[in-house]
């Protein structure tokens, strides 16, 4: 468990490396989440929209949240907010990086969290807040 005293502003959390996203994973995620938008599943639909099949933004946010809950325990997370900036394609490997932006006197830690591909392109960027226990 990580304590409030363990981190300082600018502290970088350990990187979470995810496996490459597969088409099967998108099907699995569609069923799990209930998001059956054809852009994630049907080649012809994507082509008609002038695009390629893309991963669900919420799958990448799920990975981003996994990163956050690998750094601070799930129970301490109070808020996660993200912006989806780039589309993610099957085959891409996502890594989750984060750092402490601010420590508040009430034990709240505000952090930055980014989901990037191997080339460093930011797919989803966010801010999280967690209330950490004191030693």
């Amino acid at each position, binding site marked *: 468990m990580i304590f409030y005293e363990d981190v300082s502003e600018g502290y970088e959390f350990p990187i979470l490396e995810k496996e490459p996203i597969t088409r099967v994973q998108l099907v699995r995620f569609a069923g799990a989440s209930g998001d*059956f938008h054809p852009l994630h599943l049907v080649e012809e639909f994507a082509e008609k929209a002038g695009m390629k099949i893309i991963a669900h*933004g919420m799958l990448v946010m799920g990975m981003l949240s996994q990163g956050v809950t690998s750094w601070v325990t799930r129970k301490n997370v109070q*808020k996660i*907010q*993200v912006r989806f900036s780039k589309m993610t394609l099957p085959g891409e490997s996502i890594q989750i990086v984060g750092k402490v932006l601010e420590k508040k006197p009430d034990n709240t830690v505000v952090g930055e969290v980014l989901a990037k591909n191997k080339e460093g392109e930011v797919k989803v960027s966010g801010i999280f807040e967690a209330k950490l226990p004191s030693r």
Partner: protein
Amino acid sequence: MSHVKDLIGLEFKPYTMTVEKGKIKELALAIGDDNPIYYDLEAAKKEGYAGIPIPPTFLQVIDLWGGMGSVEKMEKLGLKLARVLHGQQSYEYVGDIVAGDVLSVTSKVVDAETKTGSTGSMDLVTSENQYRNQRGELVAITRNTIVHRH
């Protein structure tokens, strides 16, 4: 859609759904999140939960399986599915949510505007959902912004 601002205040039909242990496991597996608290009651109890907790983004499951699907929702908003993308999402966790809880959700459009950028104009529509458990306690608030390209 020319009067996207008219959508502000639009309320979606409320919905209720039980948080199912199997759906928690299914979502965690799809994400590839191996945190034992989502699979094992003992591990969850060790972290102070009364039951198996939900992963941070699980409320999406309640929305899509308990409420309207994205296809119906876009119809209700008068937006074209093929032109819609997810822009922003926020989750605020007010209380614990664990397997077996029954969540009741209210959802409404809180902001809508048209913006013009380098790639043309687009509508941004933000809805806010509030989740209450079987004891009537507010346990989570989420905000979702969708981008509708013209």
